[in-house]
Every structure is written in structure tokens, then in C-alpha cells.
């Protein structure tokens, strides 16, 4: 709904109506032209001619300058009609202005008050100024007056003319309506993107500050002598630890931490992980690779994901606590988490049962065969088979078909009586099994 009269009568700043989500309510034919954040309206006169409007978003439309406060600190959205503007000062850039926030001045009635717009955020000031001039020169409000007086002359005006209905909303009729609708959608998307990026820009500049501050802290920690005379200053250590804590929570790994017994962050993570690990471990049959656990854990966390390095650190800390799980590294380099109670013996006996079956005596097993039968991940199965090979339970067969493992018959083969097929022992079983194939 249009508020007030089109020309400020006796008032410089009018109240601007906004929607519940803080967007300005525009008048009929009013179009937004420019948007800037972190803008201040100042009176540079002494004494000031009006109260400063601090920290708000500036919206330039074809009809008005609208100011919407960014914080609800009691300030009210206000606007100045462009019709009230009498003069726009040109933007002189001087050496002095390089160090200050950019300012644009204009003069408005009533009272020929000079208003200074201070731009405290990032934005295209020159672009704004150009648009400001355009809109002011465009005098869009005068056309509106014309059509207003026309419709009022022609009667109660229940019949909507053109694009706009009587209540000021755009009528979506005909091709023009469709085009207009698309235009509006595009504009609103564009604006919300602009808004988002404004926020992001502000965030990024803050983040930069934070990181450089953290870097300074880190340097300080590094250079600070840890224990010169052998006695550590308790207070200093305390604040040092605090700093480490804080830096870790911001996501920066302190080099000092790696030397120490492990910062609190890693300790807590370690305990949390030990609890979490129980169920996936059970499901995986008692042994799970570190990479699989990384996936499970982060998936469960949802946000605040931990890095692979954090995970590994947390696992290595288990040695220091009394937890029922442990990190284990195979010869091949594969790292797994397993229950302390997990016994290799148990897995070995299961493998033994698998490979002494007639079929597998003859044909051997691949890692994937073993994975299926033992119900564990193929990478885990391979590790187990390799371990069994090292223990002498299995031996390997390498061929273009791939790597297979067989029950190790070598110990049972007696070189001095090679040609006597033993009737007992697995070798005998194997001989029988293979002799059934026509050779």
C-alpha cells in the first residue's frame, strides 16, 4: 500500500513501509534500481539537521531513496522522495577521501538540507551515483501523478487500466504480463543473490582478519620459549593451552600440539570415536579399515566433519586410554580399527575351514571369495589371507587370472617319497581330489 503523499510535505524523512521480511513495499510503478549495504545517512551541519541514520541498507528506486536499518535497534525504515532532492553534488575524489569511507552529498527540501550518504560497506559507489542521477532526472513520479489525476478524473476507477490493478499490484495479463512476471522473478533472484554475496563479502573479510590473527598467535606460540630453566611458568602454560584450544576450535592445527601429549580437542574426539566405533565394528565383523570408519563417522556427524588427520590422531590416542579398540597397521600399510579382543586365531581357523573344503583345496580362494564367505570387506579379507600366508597356513598362486590362495601343502609333501600318495593328511585328500580330474 502506498504510504504518505508522493512529495514529502514538511518532512524530509518519511517512514518507509516494509514487509514482514524487511523488504520495502514499493508504490505503483516504483522500481528498485540499486542496492547497497552498510550505509549511513549523516547531517554534516553543526548542529545536525536530523538524527543520523546509522548502519542500514540503501535502496534506490525510481521514486525514492529508502533506508532500512540492518539491526532492529529501534530505528525505523525511512525514505526520501527523489522529488524532494534539489541538487546532487558531484563525487570529488581527493587524497583525503582515500582514507575515509566514500561519501555522496545531495540537497533536499524542505529546508535545503544537505544530506551525506556515507558508504561503509563495499559497493559500486560510482555506479550508484550514476543511477541516482538517472532516477532523479527520470522523474518517474511525475508520470504517475499524471496518470493518477487522469484516473481520478475518469471516475471511481474500478476498471483497472493497463498492467496495474487498482490496488497497485501488477496484473499478469497477456504477453506483457508474462514478460513482466519473468522480469520480476529475475530481478528478485538477482537481488537475493546480491544480498547473499554482500553478506559473504563481509564474512570473507572478517575471516581473513581472523586467520591473520590466528597466524600471529601461532607464531607467538612457536617462538615462545617453552621451558628455559626447566621450570615452567604455570600461568604461561595455562594461557598457552588456552590459545591452543581456541586455535584448534577455529580449525587451525597448532604445531605445538603435535609435540605435546595431545590437545584436549583430540582427546575428546578420541573418546567420542571409541564409543561410536563399537557398532560399525560389530557390523563389519570385528575389523574395519580406517577409511571406512572415516566415512561412517563423518556421515553420523553430519556437520563439523573431521579431517582424516584428526581421525588418525584420535585413533593413535587410544593407546593412552583404556578403550576396548585399537588401531592396527598391516605390513601392506593398510590401517584398520579392531576390537582388542579380536583374535587372529579365530579368523585363521575360519580361513582354515574355508580352504580345506574339497572345492577350495582344488581351486583355491581369491580375496573376494573369502570376503563373501567370511562376511567381511574384500580389503579386510585380503589382509587376513596375507596374514595367513605369512603364518604358513596358505600359499599363493599368481597367474594371469589373478592372485589366489591355497591351503599350504608344501609342509606335507615329503621329497624323499614324492611318488607315494599319502593316504592321510590334507595332501592325500588333495591328491585324491585332483586325480579325479582327467589328466
Amino acid at each position: 500500500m502506498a504510504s504518505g503523499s508522493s512529495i514529502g510535505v514538511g518532512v524530509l524523512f518519511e517512514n518507509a513501509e516494509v514487509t514482514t521480511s524487511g523488504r520495502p513495499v514499493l508504490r505503483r510503478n516504483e522500481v528498485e534500481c540499486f542496492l547497497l549495504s552498510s550505509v549511513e545517512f549523516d547531517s554534516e551541519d553543526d548542529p545536525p539537521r536530523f538524527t543520523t541514520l546509522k548502519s542500514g541498507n540503501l535502496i534506490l528506486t525510481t521514486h525514492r531513496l529508502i533506508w532500512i536499518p540492518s539491526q532492529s535497534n529501534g530505528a525505523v525504515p525511512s525514505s526520501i522522495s527523489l522529488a524532494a532532492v534539489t541538487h546532487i553534488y558531484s563525487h570529488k575524489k581527493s587524497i583525503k577521501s582515500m582514507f575515509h569511507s566514500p561519501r555522496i552529498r545531495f540537497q533536499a527540501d524542505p529546508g535545503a538540507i544537505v544530506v551525506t550518504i556515507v558508504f561503509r560497506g563495499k559497493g559500486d559507489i560510482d555506479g550508484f551515483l550514476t543511477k541516482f542521477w538517472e532516477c532523479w532526472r527520470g522523474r518517474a513520479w511525475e508520470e504517475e501523478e499524471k496518470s493518477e489525476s487522469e484516473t481520478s478524473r475518469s471516475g471511481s476507477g474500478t476498471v483497472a487500466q493497463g498492467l496495474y490493478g487498482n490496488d497497485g499490484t501488477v496484473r499478469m495479463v497477456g504477453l506483457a504480463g508474462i514478460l513482466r512476471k519473468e522480469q520480476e522473478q529475475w530481478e528478485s533472484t538477482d537481488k537475493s543473490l546480491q544480498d547473499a554475496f554482500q553478506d559473504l563479502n563481509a564474512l570473507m573479510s572478517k575471516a581473513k582478519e581472523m586467520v591473520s590473527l590466528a597466524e600471529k598467535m601461532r607464531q607467538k606460540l612457536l617462538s615462545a620459549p617453552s621451558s628455559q630453566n626447566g621450570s615452567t611458568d604455570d600461568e604461561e602454560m595455562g594461557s598457552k593451552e588456552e590459545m591452543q584450544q581456541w586455535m584448534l576450535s577455529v580449525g587451525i592445527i597448532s604445531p605445538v600440539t603435535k609435540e605435546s601429549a595431545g590437545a584436549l580437542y583430540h582427546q575428546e574426539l578420541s573418546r567420542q570415536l571409541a564409543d561410536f566405533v563399537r557398532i560399525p565394528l560389530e557390523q563389519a565383523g570385528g575389523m574395519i579399515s580406517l577409511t571406512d570408519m572415516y566415512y561412517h563417522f563423518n556421515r553420523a556427524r553430519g556437520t563439523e566433519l573431521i579431517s582424516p588427520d584428526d581421525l588418525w590422531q584420535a585413533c593413535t590416542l587410544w593407546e593412552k586410554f583404556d578403550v576396548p579398540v585399537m588401531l592396527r597397521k598391516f605390513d601392506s600399510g593398510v590401517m584398520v580399527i579392531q576390537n582388542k579382543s579380536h583374535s587372529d586365531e579365530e579368523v585363521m581357523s575360519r580361513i582354515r575351514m574355508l580352504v580345506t573344503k574339497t572345492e577350495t583345496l582344488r581351486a583355491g580362494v581369491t580375496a573376494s571369495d573369502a570376503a563373501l564367505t567370511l562376511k567381511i570387506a574384500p580389503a579386510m579379507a585380503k589382509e587376513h589371507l596375507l596374514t595367513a600366508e605369512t603364518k604358513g597356513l596358505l600359499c599363493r598362486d599368481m597367474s594371469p587370472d589373478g592372485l589366489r590362495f591355497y591351503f599350504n601343502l608344501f609342509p606335507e609333501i615329503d621329497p624323499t617319497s614324492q611318488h607315494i600318495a599319502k593316504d592321510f593328511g590334507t595332501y592325500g585328500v588333495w591328491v585324491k581330489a585332483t586325480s579325479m580330474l582327467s589328466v
Partner: protein
Amino acid sequence: MQKLADFKLPPFFNYPPYFTLQPVRDTREKQIQLWKELILDYCKSQKIFLIGVEDDFPLFSNSAIDRSLSHEAREAFLSAIVGEGRAEWLDKGHRKCLILWHRIQDWADMILQFVRDNGLEDSVMTVEEIRTGTESHGTELQGIDRTILMRALKLLENKGKLALFKGTSADDEGVKFSV
């Protein structure tokens, strides 16, 4: 049981892991032992004195199970035989291997026996005759590898049991026994 010519192959010749050089030490040692015996037995039965590592030596592959020894495995097994003194590499590149399923000393003893059996104590013979002559028919000396024979003869020469002398050509190399 499989056969290669008239040689009976042992059952484990059909065991696929037999054809893969085993990485685990204990297993490998057993495997090497089995291969050593097999190679020596086979060469003795077929009177094979020389194995080329890259040759199609029948023991090196088993078409029934579609497996064959890698170059690395062949060299490993032959080197093991060399290490035991039952074979010799003829070249630095380990491409040709002389198989001594009888040691040189054993061959030398056989020559002495041959000399006694045929009353050749003070006689002269060509080296070639020892190998292919009628006297050697049916004996182990028949068809003996020339290199091995020369080595055995040289060994006996050092012991004063004979004297080697050159003839007009290589074929006429001769031996004077003084057993």
C-alpha cells in the same frame, strides 16, 4: 599320474602354487627343495646336461593346470642347484646352466671304473670314443656332455691318472690312461 616322456611326474606338479615363487621364507625353502630334486631327477632320467633359462624346458610349464614358471622363479631354482654344487652357470648372465646330476667327482670315478672294466689301463683313446664308442654303450658314460667329460678328465689328469693330449683337430683329442 602325469608323464613327460617316460618320466613319472609327482602329484604336486599339478599344485598351482608350485609354479609361483613363494614369498614366505619357510614355504619358499620347501618349494625350492622340491624343485631341485625334480629337476635333477628328470635330467638324470632323460640325460639332459644343459638347461637354458629361456628354453621351453618341459618341467617349467604344466599345460594341464595352465601354469608356468616365471623367469625369476626359474633362475631362483637353478641357482639353488648351483649353490649345492649340482649345477654350474655357464655364463655371467645366468642364461645357460650345466646340470651335474652326477658330480664331476662321480663322473671321474665312473671313468676309472670304465677303464678297469674294459682293460684300458695303459691305453690311448680319443675323448670322443669315450663318449660314443662301443665300449660306452649301455653305460652311463654314453652320450655324456663333452664339457662335463673334459672336466672329469682334467680332474683325473691332476690326479695323475691320465694325460690329455691334443690331436690334429678337436675331434682327435686323446687320453692316455695310466691308471
